């Protein structure tokens, strides 16, 4: 089951903050966040693991609510370079621990 992201799209001015949410119907043990610019490959931002461990970007923060099977990505003081489509990827239990299921994507546009 594909995780659902919200909002689908958001437009910001430079310096404004944004929150992107990722919600799964299945139990999670990891959540990944990636950013993809138009016509390019996705780039890794952050991993959040069950138990609270995080790995990734210093200027981007995220949370992982294991009980609610949700993660949120927090973009503060946005810059023009933050523009792109953000995808969450979820890792699940039960024999499929080598793969991720990617979410529906959130398009973020930062304007001057």
């Amino acid at each position, binding site marked *: 089951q*594909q995780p659902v992201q919200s909002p689908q799209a958001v437009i910001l001015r430079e310096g404004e903050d944004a929150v992107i949410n990722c919600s799964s119907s299945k139990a999670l*043990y*990891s959540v*990944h966040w*990636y950013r993809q610019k138009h016509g*390019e*490959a*996705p*780039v*890794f931002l952050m*991993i959040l*693991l069950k138990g609270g461990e995080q*790995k*990734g970007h210093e200027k981007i923060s995220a949370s992982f609510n294991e009980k609610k099977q949700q993660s949120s990505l927090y973009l503060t003081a946005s810059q023009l370079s933050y523009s792109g489509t953000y*995808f969450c*990827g*979820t*890792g*699940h239990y039960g024999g499929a*621990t*080598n*793969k*991720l*299921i*990617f*979410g*529906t*994507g959130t398009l973020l546009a930062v304007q001057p």
Partner: protein
Amino acid sequence: SQTIHQWPATLVQPVGSPLSLECTVEGTSNPNLYWYRQAAGRGLQLLFYSVGIGQISSEVPQNLSASRPQDRQFILSSKKLLLSDSGFYLCAWSVGGATYEQYFGPGTRLTVT
């Protein structure tokens, strides 16, 4: 440092023709390898993944196949392309399973006409 290559970068093929896309990784051993497809304006659909030579897991039943003839080589193939096979094909690698980050190659943009 590790690098991932994909070729070709772009491809235009007629319906019914064969397909072979190649992905190679340098600077690491025994990586997990993944093939994704991304339709225009859409998300990432996992097609195949491999945890070792000759080990392929298929995620979506379709006219595509994958092979891993060498540790750091992953090939996506089709005997007869369909219009619906058009898209952006991305190869990715990681050092392990879903608790490790994935690194994506530059992608192949395939148009089936």
